[in-house]
């Protein structure tokens, strides 16, 4: 995959994830209307299924709940969250780790500003805004909605521990995330991930609450010999599972997407500086600092960083579990790939 394919694929994925997000909320809202509020859908026998609070005992009263309020509200919320993720996602990511604008009067931060400018020139893009995260563990991430609206944040520890060339390598890596629209996908995922875990929390709570209330009415429904259709039961089960598992699934998605992109960002970052060795030695320094980056505690931002801020050893491992949950490919492999580039050996990963 080269950067043009990566760019196209990132834009596609961003749209796909937004669509999936809307579909998820539509499903949640409809489910709420049908299973909790007792709305009837033609062709689907939902009698006796669900957590109905307001179900009328008279099946002819189909119009008792004519407007799907749940669906409307949930779609409005989803739309709001989407717009928020587009216009406010980067600011949220930066705020969540306490980042502030780099200050040109501080020599180390001036160097960061200069290096960001240099890499913007090398990539032929407008310069992103540079931010500093007050944390002594070396780490960095990029966010924004595209090259014209991009932010690169580096921790104080990164500025202190790396020399100029190594910093250049790291910023070049972040710059390539900006250049191929990784930032757009990542930022949208980060913002939506937060929203989904909130909503899912709410739904699973209300499901538990509703379950207690409606158990009586359900048993009375059965005693009248009106069991629900099999299809409705299945959909109801899927609805509950979706609501509860959503944060889990969306996290796995975020991890998979981000891990995939790191090799490419390493390689095209090296293309910008023409100095893969510098990024390799920067990664070695970052790897040696095993302490977690405390300022970056939000799960939504973890997958955007150059190295996992949680400081777990997970990213060093291989295998199914690591493949599922690690945000980044093993550091060793990344460093090896860069060193091979420095010796001009062809390498296929």
């Amino acid at each position, binding site marked *: 995959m080269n950067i043009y394919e990566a760019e196209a694929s990132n834009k596609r994925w961003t749209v796909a994830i937004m669509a999936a997000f809307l579909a998820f909320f539509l499903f949640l809202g409809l489910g709420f209307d049908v299973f909790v509020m007792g709305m009837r859908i033609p062709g689907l026998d939902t009698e006796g299924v669900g957590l109905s609070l307001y179900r009328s005992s008279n099946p002819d009263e189909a119009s008792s709940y004519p407007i799907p309020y749940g669906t409307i509200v949930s779609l409005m919320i989803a739309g709001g969250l989407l717009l928020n993720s587009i216009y406010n996602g980067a600011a949220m990511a930066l705020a969540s780790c306490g980042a502030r604008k780099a200050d040109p009067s501080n*020599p180390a931060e*001036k*160097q960061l500003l*200069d*290096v960001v*400018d*240099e*890499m913007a*020139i*090398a*990539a*032929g893009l407008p310069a992103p805004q540079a931010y500093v995260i007050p944390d002594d563990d070396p780490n960095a991430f990029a966010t924004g909605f595209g090259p014209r609206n991009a932010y690169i944040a580096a921790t104080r520890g990164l500025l202190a521990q790396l020399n*100029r060339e190594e910093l*250049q390598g790291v910023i070049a890596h972040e710059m390539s995330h900006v250049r191929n629209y990784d930032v757009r996908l990542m930022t949208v995922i980060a913002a939506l991930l937060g929203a989904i875990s909130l909503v899912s929390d709410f739904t699973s709570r209300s499901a538990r609450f509703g379950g207690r209330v409606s158990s009586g009415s359900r048993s009375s429904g059965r005693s009248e010999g009106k069991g629900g259709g099999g299809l409705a039961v299945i959909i109801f089960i899927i609805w509950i599972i979706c609501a509860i598992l959503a944060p889990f699934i969306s996290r796995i998605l975020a991890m998979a997407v981000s891990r995939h992109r790191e090799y490419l960002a390493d390689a095209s970052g090296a293309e*910008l500086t*023409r100095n893969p060795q510098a990024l390799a030695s920067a990664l070695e320094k970052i790897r040696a600092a095993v302490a977690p980056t405390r300022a970056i505690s939000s799960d939504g931002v973890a997958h955007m960083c150059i190295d996992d801020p949680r400081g777990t050893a997970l990213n060093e491992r291989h295998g199914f579990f690591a493949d599922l949950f690690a945000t980044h490919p093993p550091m060793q492999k990344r460093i090896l790939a860069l060193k091979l580039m420095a010796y001009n050996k062809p390498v296929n990963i």
Partner: protein
Amino acid sequence: MIIAGIIAAVVILAIWVISVYNSLVGLRNQVANGFRQIDVQLKRRYDLIPNLINSVKGEMKFESQTLERVIQARSMAVSANATGNVADMSKKEGELSMALGRLFALSENYPNLKANDSVKSLMEELTSTENKISFARQFYNDIATGYNIKQQVFPNNFIVSMFGSFKTADLFEIPQDAKQEREAPKVDLGV
């Protein structure tokens, strides 16, 4: 039927010529813009050098030869820049980079300079400008190469020769004699 076929062929040919021509125009402007970006950084460097010389000259008075060479290389680069000839520019700019590099290396011997905040920030500024120049050149060379390839491949070369408004873009190169110069720093630059 035959006439319709001929018309279709002509239309397709015209569409192809137009698309190649337009993409060449786009690339030509990108190349020109890339060149201007280098120019911006070069001008910045010309402005910074006198400041640096002024602030280090008191401390480095025993290095007057090196300082002299930087000043001289700068003025030659400025006059080469005015001509806009890429080959001449890259030669003179290369010499200026070399002279500056020597000055930087020598300044390492002066702890007072290293402790001086204004000198330090000037050095950072110049280092960054040097880097920006080389990255701007790298970017320029990349897009200029793309432009040249687009002109030279078959069958685009027919269109290029048809219009004659597209010329091969010159690339920035490290001057051939730069290496000798590094090995023999006593070369006389007083043209």
